[in-house]
Every structure is written in structure tokens, then in C-alpha cells.
């Protein structure tokens, strides 16, 4: 695209749905849902992840996410957080589909409660179960290039490699792998988990990712709404830099002012 084109024309599409915002945000860990909603607006997000849990029967009047982060305004992406097997994930997402009426979902099957690393063997098995039931599945995964390909081949709507462990804020630990996944991908690539600050989001987008997904980096910032805005700008900057094509790196200095005509 050339620089005169409006940024709003630079869209991306997952499972047949087209989005302008390349920043997906989580809805966990916020002080309250009102702050969460303000951050989602400041981020310019069009999609938010949500979790499915038992209702609190002892206090049915407690605040509900949908009253603040409204599903008419944001595409809900129900997740399978807390599921450790394919069957648990399928059960959760069947309920999510009934609760929300969507078939676009985020699959995450974790293995180790300490590192929160995904169990990729079980994730791939769960993906196949979900695809067979007609779900459109965005898949949280390790930054393993081969597994990313297997997920796409099995019908993933998007692959979402981690930058670093969930909630760690360490940034992109293996940019080489993320770039290789992007280069090979036949489906959108979304960096999910581990981003800590705006520069991390810029790097993800400069690597050519279609979008980024983050929760803790915004929710646990001192000022979540301001950080959400920073992330919006970071994603736009990184995307533009990727499209603009960076200058080659050089080992020496190269003067910017002409060396001829000196007095």
C-alpha cells in the first residue's frame, strides 16, 4: 500500500470477519469492568477475549461483563482458559457458543500451571475436535514453526504464538521464530501473551504479524487506559513500519548531509 492510503483501509480478516484494529485485548485482571471498558475503547479494540465461568448464584445481581464491555460493540472471543484436555475445551466452547451465539473462539490448552505453556499435542487434538463441530478457531500456541504449520493444516482460523509466558511481560523472546511463522503462514498470525509494553507491540507488528493480543500489559499498567492508548499507537506504528520497509542496517556511519560543496 502506498503512504497516501488511509490507515483505515489496512484491514485484516479472520474466519471471514474483517477488522480495522489489529489490537485484541483481554478482559481479565482489571480493577473493575468499567475500567476494562474504558481501556478497550482507548485501545480502539474491536475484539476482546472473554472467559466462561459458572454464574454466582449467591449474588446474581453482581456486575456482568456484558453490561460494560458490550457484545454489540466488541466481537467476543471466548477462550478455553483453565482447560487441560481437548474434551474440556470442547465442552466449554459449546457452552460459549450457546451463551453468545458465536463460533469464533480462542483455543488454549495449557499443560504446566507454573509456566502456563500450551500443551501442543493436546491443542492440536482439541483443534480437530472443534473444527469438526464447525468452530472457527484461533489457536494459542508455542512459537514452534512446525506446530504452527500443523495447526493451519488442521483448519485453524489463525495461529497465535506466544511472545513469552502468559502474564510475564517479557516481550518477544524469539523474534526469529515469530518471523518464520509469519513468512510461512497461510492463516493470520497473532502474537498472544507475554508482551509487556508498547515497544514489544511495535516489534510484533514490525515482524509482520497480523495483530497482537494482550491482557496483562494493559490491565496491570499503573494507568491502564493510557497504556491501552499507547498500545494502539504502537500497533499502528509497527504496522506502518512493516509496510514501509525498513532501511538496510549498515556496519558503519553513513552521513545524511552531502559531503561535497563543503566550505
Amino acid at each position, binding site marked *: 500500500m502506498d503512504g497516501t492510503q488511509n490507515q483505515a483501509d489496512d484491514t485484516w480478516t479472520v474466519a471471514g470477519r474483517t477488522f480495522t484494529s489489529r489490537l485484541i485485548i*483481554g*478482559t*481479565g*485482571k*482489571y480493577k473493575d*469492568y468499567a475500567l*476494562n471498558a474504558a481501556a478497550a475503547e482507548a485501545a480502539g479494540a474491536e475484539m476482546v*477475549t*472473554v*472467559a*466462561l*465461568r*459458572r*454464574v454466582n*448464584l449467591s449474588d*446474581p*445481581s453482581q456486575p*456482568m*461483563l*456484558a453490561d460494560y*464491555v458490550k457484545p454489540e460493540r466488541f466481537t*467476543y472471543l*471466548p*477462550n478455553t*482458559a483453565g482447560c487441560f484436555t481437548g474434551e474440556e475445551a470442547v465442552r466449554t466452547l*459449546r*457452552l*460459549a457458543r*450457546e*451463551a*453468545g451465539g458465536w463460533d469464533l473462539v480462542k483455543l488454549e490448552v495449557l499443560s504446566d500451571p507454573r509456566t502456563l505453556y500450551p500443551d501442543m499435542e493436546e491443542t492440536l487434538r482439541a483443534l480437530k475436535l472443534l473444527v469438526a463441530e464447525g468452530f472457527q478457531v484461533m489457536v494459542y500456541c508455542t512459537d514452534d514453526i512446525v506446530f504452527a504449520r500443523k495447526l493451519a493444516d488442521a483448519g485453524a482460523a489463525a495461529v497465535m504464538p506466544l511472545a513469552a509466558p*502468559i*502474564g510475564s511481560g517479557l516481550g518477544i523472546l524469539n523474534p526469529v521464530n515469530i518471523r518464520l511463522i509469519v513468512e510461512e503462514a497461510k492463516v493470520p498470525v497473532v502474537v498472544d*501473551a507475554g508482551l509487556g509494553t508498547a515497544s514489544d507491540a511495535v516489534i510484533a507488528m514490525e515482524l509482520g504479524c497480523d495483530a497482537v493480543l494482550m*491482557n*496483562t500489559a494493559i490491565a496491570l499498567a499503573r494507568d491502564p487506559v493510557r497504556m491501552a492508548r499507547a498500545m494502539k499507537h504502537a500497533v499502528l506504528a509497527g504496522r506502518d513500519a512493516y509496510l514501509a520497509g525498513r532501511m538496510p542496517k549498515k556496519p558503519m556511519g553513513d552521513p545524511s548531509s552531502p559531503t561535497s560543496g563543503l566550505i
Partner: protein
Amino acid sequence: MNLTINGETRAVDDLPDLAALVASLGLDARKVAVERNLEIVPRSAYSATPIADGDRIEIVHFIGGG
């Protein structure tokens, strides 16, 4: 009758159907999903779904998550 709702055993008055149960719990049927004995009940079928002593009911909704 006794029902197990979200893992807790509760004694409830006799209710004609699932729609009545959801209403009696003070919940907005548009914002929840319900499983009865491990089978999802579509929202449109709540009033046509009887409940019986010993049923295991799960009632879930969306909350914040990453």
C-alpha cells in the same frame, strides 16, 4: 426436589421447567448458557425442558479473561 446447580446441591420448590428455574435464580436468560445433565439446552428450549429431582445443572456466563 433436589438439584445440583453449579456443583452445589440445592433444594428447590417444584418448578415446571428450566425457564422457571433460571428466573427463580434471578438470572437473565439472555446472558447465560445452561447445561442439564451434561447436555446443552438451547435458550429457545428452556420452557420446553422439564427438570427432575437429581438433575445436574450448570449455568455459566462470560466474565473477564485473557
